[in-house]
């Protein structure tokens, strides 16, 4: 019925742009820098205490760490699917993918809590050694980011159920998704650095 014309929206879609609010990207940069400093401090403290770090690292549950990597990668993938569903105006699917990512994200917390329970049962604390100090503070700092990420995902799930996200009105969803992916990205450095590199 109507001739196809290039709408301004489609022209904009092809121009480079950041997904989500500019503000979240500044926030993400600040977070990356903070964690970067932590990672560097860990790496150089380890370089000066190789034997201690190598011995105590073996006490960590690598299997739990690897399982948590799978959980976070999967939760991120579910968030991508949620964004793609919103682009197709499939609000219900968007909400379902977000719910799947929330469940997977909670799985990460459960695995981490069992790990902490085991550590505390072995009298591991912030002051028991430099390695334990880094292990607990780095993973707990990250743990709190996962909790915040889950709060955001739950808020977005609520929004998606009300049909809030659709093409042209994706900003809220993209902003929250970017934060969640950052949490995943940080773990992809933290896990090999603290659990595996020996």
């Amino acid at each position, binding site marked *: 019925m109507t001739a196809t014309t290039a709408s301004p929206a489609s022209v904009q879609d092809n121009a480079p742009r950041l997904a989500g609010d500019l503000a979240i990207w500044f926030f993400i940069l600040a977070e990356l820098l903070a964690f970067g400093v932590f990672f560097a401090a860990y790496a150089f403290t380890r370089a000066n205490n190789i034997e201690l770090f190598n011995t105590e690292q073996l006490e960590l549950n690598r299997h739990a760490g690897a399982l948590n990597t*799978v959980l976070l990668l999967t939760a991120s993938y579910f968030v991508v699917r949620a964004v793609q569903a919103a682009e197709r105006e499939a609000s219900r699917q968007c909400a379902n993918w977000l719910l799947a990512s929330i469940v997977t994200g909670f799985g990460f917390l459960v695995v981490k809590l069992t790990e902490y329970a085991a550590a505390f049962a072995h009298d591991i604390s912030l002051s028991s050694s430099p390695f334990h100090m880094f292990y607990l503070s780095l993973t707990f700092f990250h743990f709190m980011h996962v909790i915040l990420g889950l709060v955001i995902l739950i808020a977005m799930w609520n929004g998606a159920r009300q049909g809030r996200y659709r093409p042209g009105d994706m900003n809220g969803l993209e902003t929250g998704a970017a934060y969640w992916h950052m949490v*995943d990205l940080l773990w992809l450095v933290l896990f090999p650095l603290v659990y595996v590199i020996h």
Partner: protein
Amino acid sequence: MSKSMHGNPRTSTLLWATLILATLATWAMGALGETGTWGVAVLAVISFWKGAVIILDFMALRHAPLLWRALTMGWMVVVWAIIAIAYIKGLAQ
């Protein structure tokens, strides 16, 4: 219809499967006791690649202005370079 910056389900699923396979591969390396300098180098390269997929594809920075791609990918390069330098310093001990 313009191409979405968030990719399509098929490509994303393929990327996710590859990320999981890479994770299982490094997990198996660890389980088999494959550490040592070469093991660490392989692990670092795989971890870097996984981070790049998250940044470029999942965060859709592939379609962002160059500055933002450079800032985020640059962060990964710097972080892994620091880890590598510290690791090599530790070897010399």
